């Protein structure tokens, strides 16, 4: 490698076994029907799943507390918007592009809901058996619980704030340096220099913490 070339997260190898990802992942299921998702079976299998019958607060979902959110479209957020779950999905994707959301509904037949299915990272149509749900989770964990996925979210956030590519690459380099030295990357200071939005800074810090969590010691 050219000695002065900036290091990228894709250069850092990562081999976190799926078993380990399963233990670390936090999953949220938002559905007004308690029977819709195979909660008991998957909790017995060792997945950390929180169940919400509706969206009473957006904050835990906005903050990126959950690695995967299974979101129903109807009856989960009627007080937030006429569009119910679709509005929540759009809002969360706008606030946190790296948030993995699975569209979880029985209304695949409804043409008017197409946007809901297309916006989501994946879909799971009801009724669903435990085996299918487990396969969906494992596939998403392997695909999205990666430094590159979270870095994609950081990039999208910084670009939306007008931060130049050069600065973003510099922040990425700082993260790589920290994780290869096995130290905690503190990018707040660097990000604050290029971005004034406190909310974005907090989100970037949260995503970088996730990257460090994956690349750091278990």
């Amino acid at each position, binding site marked *: 490698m050219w000695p002065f070339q900036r290091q990228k997260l894709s250069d850092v190898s990562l081999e976190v076994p799926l078993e380990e990802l399963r233990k670390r992942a936090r999953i949220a299921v938002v559905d007004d*029907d308690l*029977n*819709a998702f*195979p909660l*008991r*079976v998957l909790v*017995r299998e060792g997945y950390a799943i929180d169940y919400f019958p509706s969206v009473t607060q957006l904050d835990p979902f906005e903050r990126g507390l959950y690695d995967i959110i299974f979101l129903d479209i109807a009856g989960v957020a009627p007080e937030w918007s006429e569009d119910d779950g679709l509005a929540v999905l759009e809002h969360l994707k706008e606030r946190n592009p790296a948030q993995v959301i699975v*569209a979880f509904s*029985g*209304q*695949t*037949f*409804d*043409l*008017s809901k*197409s946007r809901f*299915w*297309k916006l989501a*990272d*994946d*879909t*799971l*149509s*009801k*009724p*669903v*058996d*435990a*085996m299918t749900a487990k*396969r969906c989770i494992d*596939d998403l964990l392997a695909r999205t619980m990666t430094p590159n996925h979270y870095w994609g979210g950081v990039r999208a956030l910084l670009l939306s704030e007008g931060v130049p590519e050069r600065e973003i690459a510099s922040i990425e380099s700082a993260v790589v340096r920290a994780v290869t030295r096995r130290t905690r990357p503190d990018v707040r200071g660097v990000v604050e220099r290029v971005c004034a939005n406190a909310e974005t800074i907090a989100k970037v810090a949260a995503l970088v913490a996730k990257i460090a969590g994956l690349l750091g010691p278990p």
Partner: protein
Amino acid sequence: MLEIIQSLLPFPSGVPGSAELRAGWRHSVPLSCRKCRDRPCLSTEHAADHLSHRVCPRGASFYSTQIGSTDVRLIGLLDAELNADCPKGLRRALRDNRVNVADVQQAVTDLQERMGALDRAVSHDVREALAGLHDVKTATNVVYRCMEEVVASYDGTTDVEKIERADVSIRGLLESIALLKSRLDSASIAANPAAAAYGQQRNTPVYRVFHRMVKLFAPLARDKGVRIAMSGASYNAPPAYASFETVALVLIDNAVKYALRNTDVVVLVRDEHPASVRVCITSVGPLVPEAETDRIFERGYRGTSATGYAASGSGIGLHTAAVVARAHGFDIRYAARAPATAEVGENAFFFVIAAPGSGGAGATTTGGASSVPS
């Protein structure tokens, strides 16, 4: 939808890839267009999502546009400004089809609005009609959760082990629910074809999908006195949407439904190219007359032999399977093996599914798959 669009167009029209021309309610198809053999105006190369004008090699104007999701060509027109080089003879032939861009634009905009309103009205009615489908799905959720608790009570460390140790009746019940779930998914795609491409594509072991469906249909086949079996070997797992299962459901369901008593339904699955899988389902039953083979995948079409043989059926299944196939980039083909005059013989439905770029599925449309695998 195409018929409605064409009937509301004032100009003569055609659709890409078809040789058929249709008169508009104001202007007819000019003789010169009817005589034209090449019909470059109907080439699939000129697709456009907005109104786009072109002049054909003979000198007539044609427009490409999209009404809803339908590509339409407005053909055989003469624009005073845009056809300045039109030969005199053709100009005379097209004298009744004089238009200007503003007229065409206005007609297209009006039609798009009308079709949009129609689409919204149909969607509303479909939504109302399908509200019951949602209730069935909700009820099925409860059955699933109850079954999972029953299975959990058996010994074993994994679900698979527990299911294997469960009573035959419990396993039968699980298979029945799985079949019900597949039918519900298929009904959803029939109502909303876009659902065929919902979600992420995952590497899908094709053999396993068909084998599972064969197991689900085994009791129904047995009750009908039909034997059903898998054949071949396949290890490829091309990327596919969850909807791919519907292809297996429909083709095996059809084969069992129309198979004659004491005959075999054989599901052959075998690897072809490094990344593609060929599937062929053969059964013995009433043949599809040659004149109808192109129509059996049309929505709502039931062949004359199908109507005479099985009372149930809506002509939706094969159409739904074809929709799912198209979402995966392949076509399902039909072939019959029997003397030309026979009414009963061996029916074969076959296709090739491949990983994108592997070139395997292309064989279905270039003739490679028109031969039924033995």
